[in-house]
């Protein structure tokens, strides 16, 4: 499908937006791996790691979400549909991630197995958001 505006009118995600989006992926994945380590060893430090990795991931993902919302409002019609899916998936990842952070605040094994299950769901959602986001053209003219 040809884009009538030509290559010069298309730009990728802003580098900072891309950094925020991609940056939260290893943090969410780290939380998942830490949860898995805790569930298989009962070693409490792994779940401490998971809690902090989630906080870091939520900060980056939250900023990426704000950026994506602003982009969505400024996007021209042609790209709104695709951007909307990206924003919704990222929003879902953040909301489930936040619930996961609250679950991680339960003491010791009280968080299991919910913490591990939620971490898997969040990891899938954030990978999907990243895929959608990084393959989405940013709208607007490039000077």
């Amino acid at each position, binding site marked *: 499908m040809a884009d009538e505006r030509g290559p010069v009118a298309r730009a990728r995600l802003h580098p900072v937006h891309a950094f925020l989006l991609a940056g939260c992926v290893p943090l969410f994945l780290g939380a998942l791996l830490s949860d898995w380590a805790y569930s298989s060893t*009962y*070693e*409490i*430090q792994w779940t*401490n790691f998971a*809690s*902090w990795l989630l*906080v870091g991931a939520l900060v980056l993902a939250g900023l990426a979400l704000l950026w994506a919302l602003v982009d969505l409002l400024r996007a021209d019609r042609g790209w709104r549909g695709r951007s909307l899916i990206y924003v919704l998936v990222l929003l879902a990842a953040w909301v489930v991630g936040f*619930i996961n*952070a*609250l*679950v*991680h*605040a*339960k*003491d*010791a*094994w*009280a968080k299991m197995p919910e913490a591990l299950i939620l971490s898997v769901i969040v990891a899938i959602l954030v990978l999907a958001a990243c895929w959608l986001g990084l393959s989405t053209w940013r709208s607007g003219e490039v000077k």
Partner: protein
Amino acid sequence: MRLVAPLAVVGVATALLSACGNSSSNPNQYGPNPTLPGPHRGLLPTMKIASPAGWGDQRPVVPAGYAITAIATDLKIPRQTLVLPNGDILVAEGRGGGESKLTPKDFVASKLKAQGTSPVKGGNRLTLLRDANGDGVYETRTVFAENLNAPYGLALIGNTLYVADQDALLKFDYRTGQTRASGPPVVVTPLPSAVNHHWTKALTASPDGRFLYVGIGSNSNITERGMNVETDRAMIWQVDAQTGAHRQFATGLRNPTALAIQPVTNQLWAVVNERDEIGPNLVPDYLTQVREGGFYGWPYSYWGQHVDNRVRPQNAAKVASAIVPDYGLGSHVAALGVAFSSAAMGPHFADGVFVGEHGSWNRTPPSGYRVIFVPFTNGRPSGPPIDFVTSFMGKDGKTRGRPVGVTVDPKGALIVADDLSNTIWRVTPVRATAAPPTR
């Protein structure tokens, strides 16, 4: 119509976050067979931090026939008291703990809980109060010892005063009438102090003066700091007063915050704070006679064989051996003081124990914030508790005081330390034959 969806989301979120509406029920949790619901926790723990307020003209409420006066104010976090043979009162003042914050939750929870306590810095000292002429006014006040490290438990054996700092058991020489320690303390034995989540070290002496019993709290609510830091925690040590050597007298007591020797039987009793965050009505704090060599459940189980699923790895053998405590005090009341009464306290409160309840954070409506009396018959608890000092939390929901240590003065008075208003309260029976009490 468009508003409906967001409202529904808010509604669901609120339901998820709250403790699902079972918080207002008040099952009977007093005595030997408390009602124990199933464990439950919402997405957020129930938190109700009562905001402090000054006493103003108000006073704690005591039963008819009793009077209460503040015998010392503006202290620096008074916790436990000791009545000396000449009637002088020693007050241990301090605030311990200071564990590192390990998780995001630790940062949030510590900020919230601090709102319910006094902003005053702990005194790390012992203050001596003296009423020389016996008129009920403690006109002399001296600093008996300072530069201590969060002193809490106090005990006197002969001419030796024992003080349990948060990290060591200390001793001072003591002569009757002394108002200031004659020298720095000597360390009897270091006490477990790594992390020190539950930092208070309760103390009492055996009747023959050979041993000291030291209550050492757990290093976590329910092992969320790992099992390694729980070595030598959640137990009562028996320490040889001469040598400082110790052995484990009883274990599995999550936070034994006050100890007392029962008159006549000479048995050791304790009040113990049980675990949080499995519901408003779990787990009842308790008063129990401490059996030598006994295991009381923590962390693996509570109230005997009720397994706590939050602990990994589990330990079925330990659960099977867990002793059921003697007397439930209600969940989250935070019992921090215990003292056996005497005939001098008046006929209705002569046989039993007083228990100081610091008050809850993990419960709505709040519980505790009072001093109760548990009546005894033939050396055993024999009925529901009776309110003895109340209205530390007003009807407006604000807290004016939080009771900690309680001590019975043989002359006929209950001494109550209040670490929120930084006051020592004295409750006395009003004798019909005596002159009207001075207020």
